[in-house]
């Protein structure tokens, strides 16, 4: 009788712990309702399998977790499988740990009253702690998703190995009927040191990944600056040519005036000067970012604006004062302007005017960045554009403006304004100047 009750309580706790740890590991903690619902379902299933076919239990757990991952958390197949395995392994490891500790504490007194309670509590504490740790490690770097997956594989591998070691130890000891508590303690120490080692290695690996990404970013930046320099040189060349042609034209005009050949002068003017006038007016590559003194930012903006130019967009840059510092993190700024400029380019390509204005102005205690672009009259309302996942461009897009909002939400000195008026879409980013040493 007591046994049955015990099993029911255990299944209930197991189910609950599994769901909570799942929430922690995937960094999407469930609401109270969801916890109750999913937990009870799982507990029920575990309980049933406990009383019937014990062997099926791990499979039931795996499948159930997989279903939750896939349909409630909406992960891809691979991720769902990975996470369910990770959660299960985490649980079993902590369960084994709890078991071990209980043996140490209670020794041979298998029917001590408090045994089940302490056992459950220990398992719970370990599981929650480990799952939070795993969750933190998995979400550590915000830069690339690829490296995130690598980290998960790495951690999974480590935990798998620890689990294998523990299980082998345990089974072997059981098999050899080892009663000496010291062996179990030795195992425990081994096991814990291995876990610490694994976590430390994951951390190092993570750091390596981040460093690697920084290097990649730096080389990208260099490439962009290169492209920008080429553009400037190209511009310089055309300027030189123009100056040269212009001098010639002036000399000719001078000649006609001296000779008082006014008819010929008129002819010459119509045929030669008016055509060069059109050259003055076409703004090819006629912008300069010389006032942006922050290299990575200059590179990014230059690259985007050159792309715009290549798409026959009229780019106008208005930065009359030197910008040596921006008051948000450089990486965030690059992501920000990348998204905003991409949006602007995509929007104004479809219009007739094709105007894109980029400006930066100091006003009082703040620095404002302005991005304006011409847009079609049927542009969706602003709140639609800011919704996560909304896009006129199909699957996988639409993260832009909501990401911008998220990035800026981290900075209390920044403000984000949007306006759509008269066929012009304008975004303003205000940054209050603060005296903090940012990179």
């Amino acid at each position, binding site marked *: 009788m007591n046994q049955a009750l015990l099993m029911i309580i255990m299944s209930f706790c197991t189910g609950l712990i599994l769901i909570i740890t799942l929430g922690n590991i995937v960094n999407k903690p469930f609401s109270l309702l969801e916890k109750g619902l999913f937990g009870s379902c799982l507990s029920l299933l575990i309980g049933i399998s406990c009383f019937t076919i014990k062997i099926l239990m791990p499979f039931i757990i795996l499948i159930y977790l997989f279903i939750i991952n896939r349909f409630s958390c909406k992960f891809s197949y691979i991720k769902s499988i990975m996470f369910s395995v990770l959660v299960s392994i985490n649980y079993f490891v902590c369960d084994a740990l709890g078991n071990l500790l209980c043996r140490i504490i209670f020794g041979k007194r298998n029917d001590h009253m408090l045994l089940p309670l302490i056992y459950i509590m220990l398992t719970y504490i370990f599981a929650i702690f480990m799952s939070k740790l795993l969750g933190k490690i998995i979400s550590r770097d915000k830069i690339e998703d690829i490296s995130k997956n690598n980290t998960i594989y790495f951690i999974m591998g480590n935990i798998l190995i620890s689990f294998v070691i523990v299980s082998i130890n345990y089974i072997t000891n059981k098999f050899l009927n080892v009663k000496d508590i010291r062996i179990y303690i030795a195992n425990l120490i081994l096991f814990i040191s291995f876990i610490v080692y694994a976590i430390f290695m994951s951390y190092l690996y993570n750091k390596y990944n981040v460093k690697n990404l920084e290097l990649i970013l730096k080389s990208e930046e260099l490439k962009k600056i290169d492209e920008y320099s080429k553009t400037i040189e190209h511009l310089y060349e055309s300027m030189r040519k123009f100056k040269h042609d212009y001098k010639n034209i002036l000399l000719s005009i001078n000649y006609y005036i001296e000779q008082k050949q006014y008819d010929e002068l008129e002819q010459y003017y119509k045929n030669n000067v008016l055509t060069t006038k059109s050259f003055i*007016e076409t*703004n090819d590559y*006629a912008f300069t970012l010389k006032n942006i003194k922050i290299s990575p930012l200059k590179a990014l903006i230059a690259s985007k604006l050159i792309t715009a130019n290549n798409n026959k967009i009229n780019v*106008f840059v*208005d*930065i*009359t*004062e030197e910008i040596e510092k921006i008051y948000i993190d450089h990486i965030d700024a690059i992501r920000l302007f990348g998204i905003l400029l991409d949006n602007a380019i995509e929007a104004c390509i479809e219009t007739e005017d094709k105007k894109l*204005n980029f*400006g930066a*102005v*100091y*006003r*009082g*205690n*703040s620095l*404002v960045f*302005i991005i*304006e672009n011409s847009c079609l009259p049927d542009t969706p*309302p*602003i*709140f*639609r554009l*800011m919704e996560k996942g909304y896009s006129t461009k199909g699957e996988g897009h639409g993260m832009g403006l909501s990401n911008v*909002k998220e990035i*800026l*939400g981290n*900075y*209390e000195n*920044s*403000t*984000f*304004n*949007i*306006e*759509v*008026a008269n066929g012009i879409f304008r975004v*303003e980013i*205000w940054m*209050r100047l603060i005296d903090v040493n940012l990179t």
Partner: protein
Amino acid sequence: MLPIIICEDNDIQRENFKGFVKDTLIKEDYSFEIKLCTNSVDKVKDYVDNLDSSGIYFLDIDLKSNINGIRLAEYIRKKDPRGYIIFITSHSEMSFLTFKYKVEALDFIIKDNLDEIKTRIEQCLKYIHEIYYSKTTNNNVIILKNEDCLHHVDINNVIFIETSTNAHKIIVHEEKRQFEISGNLKDIAPALGSNFYRSHRAYLINRKKIREIDKKNRVIHMTNGEKCLASFRYIGGLIK
């Protein structure tokens, strides 16, 4: 009565502009008056040092260089925060964003051809006339400040205001724009009048802009399509 100040260093063009402005004033019978028409930056500075009311300023930025234009406009803006500044310039590439944001210039006129200039001057004066007279009779416009950024807001255009993820900031939603200002919903509510109702801890909505109330889910659909939340406590007050 608004004074008009014209500053342009090319004599012929200055006379032209003066003529255009005069013609418009006579034709439309605006109560504006040309108080100063000069080529000297210093005379303009002296004028604003002693001014007694806001004015309309037509400035040529090419006064020696772009930077001088900015400095003069900043000076004017400091002394006359509500004045209307209009730039006339031959730069096709002038820094209109810089001027707009630094000194809130009203408009920019490019010296392309005289007819264009005349039309644009007329348009500017018409616009100023409209705002000037509607401002004095329109109590619905309030000024919301966010550090260095001033927003002129017509209360009737505000659909709702919500709290931002940024602490101490709120986001004002209008039909065609959204902007953040510092402050909180409690402090701003009195200034907005009785049409605004605090339906939720994070939302202050304009009753006139409600399209539909979903009582069951406690969601309020606004006229522009956006959704606001209502809390259990406050939804009662809305149904009335």
